[in-house]
């Protein structure tokens, strides 16, 4: 799977370098090339070399070394005409991807060849998605009677459009690991419990839910916030001192964290990547329409937890 991604990024790199319409074609080539190296050889070159690779990618992506290559060659009218000729058959490959991904998720893990599972059960969703993508690609190529290079060229076009934002989700996940190493979470929990008044059950619920949301905004991920906030406030105060129900606290606490996910640029794959994919001029446009929902829902969560957690 990583080899497949590596091959794809290598192709993007080659196509970028050859694309003379892009004024910064060497920057794009280097960026996709380094990503290809990461996918092809990342597990063999050691941590320090990987670190240097990350810094090189950041410098390329962060300093505007990437340009945009040739964009769509067909006009909207031309595409509309083609679409009219092809009809709804066009939708088939697009819908095949999620369909096969779901079927694969539930079956691939169970199929065994000689006692060995066909797919690693931990990665089964990703593998199923990749299978769905490959099948859909074959169907689409066959329908369009196009050579594989055409698909790579169109993929390169989209990748150029996304640009450096493409590595953002992975980099943020890596930052989370560095935060854990540096003990950022422990420090936040320490501050929250030492400096805030938590003598009343409602105060404990309020701080726990708000803390989940705020800490999730900082980390970009409710999973990182949950252990810290629950160990610092949830279990010792809500459950042990005030007698709350741990299941209700955990469930609503996690969903309070998700309210934070809706409004932070740190959750790049949910908030920033869609904005880039949808070609919105404002990178934060998706976050902006989600803010009212997040605030309203967080308030609901606080009330819900206070009403329910001490009752069951």
């Amino acid at each position, binding site marked *: 799977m990583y080899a497949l991604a590596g091959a794809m990024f290598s192709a993007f790199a080659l196509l970028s370098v050859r694309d003379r319409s892009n004024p910064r074609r060497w920057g794009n080539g280097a960026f996709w090339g380094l990503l290809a190296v990461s996918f092809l050889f990342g597990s063999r070159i050691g941590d320090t070399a990987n670190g240097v690779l990350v810094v090189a990618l950041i410098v390329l992506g962060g300093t505007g070394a990437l340009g945009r290559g040739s964009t769509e060659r067909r006009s909207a009218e031309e595409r509309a005409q083609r679409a*009219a000729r092809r009809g709804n058959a066009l939708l088939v490959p697009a819908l095949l991807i999620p369909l096969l991904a779901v079927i694969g998720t539930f079956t691939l893990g169970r199929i065994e060849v000689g006692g060995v599972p066909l797919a690693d059960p931990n990665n089964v969703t990703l593998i199923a998605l990749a299978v769905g993508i490959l099948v859909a690609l074959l169907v689409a190529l066959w329908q369009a009677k196009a050579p594989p290079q055409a698909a790579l060229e169109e993929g390169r076009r989209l990748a150029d459009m996304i640009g450096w934002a493409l590595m953002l989700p992975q980099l943020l996940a890596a930052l989370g690991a560095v935060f854990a190493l540096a003990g950022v979470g422990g420090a936040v929990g320490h501050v929250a419990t030492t400096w805030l008044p938590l003598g009343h059950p409602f105060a404990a619920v309020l701080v726990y839910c708000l803390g989940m949301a705020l800490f999730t905004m900082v980390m970009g991920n409710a999973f990182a916030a949950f252990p810290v906030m629950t160990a610092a406030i949830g279990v010792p105060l809500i459950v042990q001192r005030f007698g709350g129900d741990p299941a209700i606290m955990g469930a609503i606490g996690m969903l309070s964290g*998700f309210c934070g996910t809706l409004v932070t640029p740190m959750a790049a794959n949910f908030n920033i990547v869609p904005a880039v994919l949808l070609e919105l*001029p404002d990178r934060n446009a998706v976050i902006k329409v989600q803010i009212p929902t997040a605030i309203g829902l967080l308030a609901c969560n606080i009330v819900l937890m206070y009403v329910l957690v001490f009752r069951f």
Partner: protein
Amino acid sequence: MNLWPLLAIAVLVVGFAAGVNPLLVILVTAFTAGLAAGIAPLRVLAALGHAFNATRYVSLVWLILPVIGLLEHEGLRERARTLIGRLRAATAGRILLLYLALRQLTAALGLTSLGGPAQMVRPIVAPMAEGAAESRLGRLSGPARHLVRAYAASADNVGAFFGEDIFIAVSSILLIKGFLAQSGYDIAPFRLSMWAIPTALLAFLIHGVRLWRLDAKLKRLAGGEQP
């Protein structure tokens, strides 16, 4: 307790707020956190490299780019748009409301991979919503078009986030169960899913109402041209 690593959070917030390129902000933040915790610079570099390599699976979704690119080249988005333009009952708000409901229900059944920004929103959902809005209001202005797209992405997020926790085997439920078990509370995943339902209903209500009102908002944006 060493509180200096909190400096990293300040760097992060200031960097994002000042509009510096996020990649650079993250790099500086990572080194701030590491150095403040007393870790040698080279070890921070190695830790970042190790973590980046270990999280490559996050970027595997990009394997989708060639097939989506090819389908768009063949006119997929235009097709999705005309398909919806023909339905007279369709409005941008109603389509997104329907998508929110479907997304939340399927996520609650564990089918989170049915949606997603690259798979569904860009090629299908957003063009459908735009198509519906255009067949009502005529050609959309830039800001109106961008608003429809942003709402399409938000429906995907809200539906997925507040649906998936109703499914028992989702990773967040397993994390809650695992962490509470460590703290001495053994809880059946079913109880956790059950208590995710009230919030899920409220999420649908709140975001649903906002999607419903999107049509009126678009009409206002289109200005007095409509009779």
